[in-house]
């Protein structure tokens, strides 16, 4: 049961590894050059699946703002002031937590080890709080008239990277096909071992 859950949680990553290995096997051990190119394409597709899976968030949609979110935002003020306010809040909260943490540490100062552990914990608390605050901050400063929750949209960066990867994939596939066609014109075969044989015996 645990194994199935572990599989389901990372299903896309399992699938990407399987697809990628199929492509790698085709590239490594097939003799036919066209089959090698098919393997290369399968490999690239696996990488695209991997990246897009990274960018996926539960209950998120594609990274394009809704019409309602955009509508009327042109005349809205920039979010600079709220930015400052959020920053102030953040430093305030940090000070408060630090104070609390030192207070907490003093209580247990008798035992040095304990104090260290507590300080460590306090650090963690501050870290967590800062991170939390930062995401709030991004959320608040994000509007400039808009309310955008970063978890509402998928990660756009991986989509951009994969868009360019697809382009490179098309370019490499095209060049590979052109080379294969030229080799076929030259040797009359697209089997790798036959080409090597002809090269070895000296093609007239």
């Amino acid at each position, binding site marked *: 049961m645990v194994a199935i859950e572990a599989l389901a*949680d*990372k*299903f*896309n*990553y399992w699938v990407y*590894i*399987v697809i*990628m*290995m199929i492509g*790698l*096997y085709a590239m*490594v*051990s097939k003799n036919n050059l066209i089959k090698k190119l098919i393997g290369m394409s399968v490999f690239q597709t696996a990488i695209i699946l991997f990246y897009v899976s*990274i*960018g*996926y*968030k*539960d209950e998120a949609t*594609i*990274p*394009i*703002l809704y019409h309602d*979110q*955009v509508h009327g*935002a042109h005349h809205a003020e*920039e979010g600079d002031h709220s930015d400052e306010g959020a920053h102030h809040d953040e430093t305030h909260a940090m000070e408060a937590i630090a104070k609390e943490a030192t207070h907490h540490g003093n209580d247990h100062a008798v035992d040095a080890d304990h104090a260290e552990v507590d300080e460590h914990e306090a650090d963690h608390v501050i870290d967590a709080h800062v991170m939390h605050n*930062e*995401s709030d901050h*991004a*959320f608040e400063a*994000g*509007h*400039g008239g*808009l309310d*955008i929750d*970063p*978890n*509402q*949209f998928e*990660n*756009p*960066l*991986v*989509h*951009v990277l994969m*868009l*360019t990867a697809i*382009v*490179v994939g*098309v*370019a*490499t596939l*095209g060049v590979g*096909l*052109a*080379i294969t*066609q*030229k080799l076929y*014109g030259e040797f*009359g075969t697209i089997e790798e071992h036959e080409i090597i044989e002809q090269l070895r015996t000296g093609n007239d």
Partner: protein
Amino acid sequence: MKFLGLLTVLITGFLLIQAERDFPDWGDVNSPASSYKLSQHYITQTFAETSVPNMVTAVLADYRGYDTMFETVVIFTAGIAIIGILRVFGSNIKPDHPEVVLTKKKPDLIVETTCRLLIPIIQLFALYVVAHGHHSPGGGFQGGVIFGASFILLALARDLQYAQQWVPENRILNLAGIGIFIYAGFGVASLLLGGNFLDYGVLTAIIPGDVKDAHSHSMLGVEIGVAFTVTAIMFSIYSSLSSNGHMKEGI
């Protein structure tokens, strides 16, 4: 050899699966890639900074403008490389093996009529995808591929020579170059106006509107440049591969 390949693949796959344990769960909003400030900045600030609702296009054409420009150059280089590898000049050079000789028949009525109806719609849709790419899914690469596909459809339905009446070889390569010139032109224009290369904000001097509008409109211009190159190179790759470099007797 096959066994060695299988062994390599299995070992690599095993190592990858071992590494996969450390991955965050699929769809986890707190995974490093999703919680990192850069992608959150893209999501929350893109519209405030560029007034473009499609974040993918904004990141592609603005934040990562260099990357996309050289991506276009990669496409262009691939097209040139394919022509360099395959192109055969003159008609008297014959390859060793007999070429497939297609009997010249009158084009099929149904195919011809369907293409006559479809191709204008495909091209119109391609222009829409390019022009509306920063507001809805789309952009220069996608629109360019659709536009190139319309010419490929024409070449498939009739023959390559018929399609080349509209897109002859020299014109197609000029188009590919013009695309990159348009893209780089936006970069040089922003250099001349005192900004960084591809820093569209300073283009307010020549583009009406405020800084956000300058970003938005420059993205459209850049996407048009990309579309030119992609259209040209897609058809160029097809015509080179299908005619075995002769650019005449295609499929």
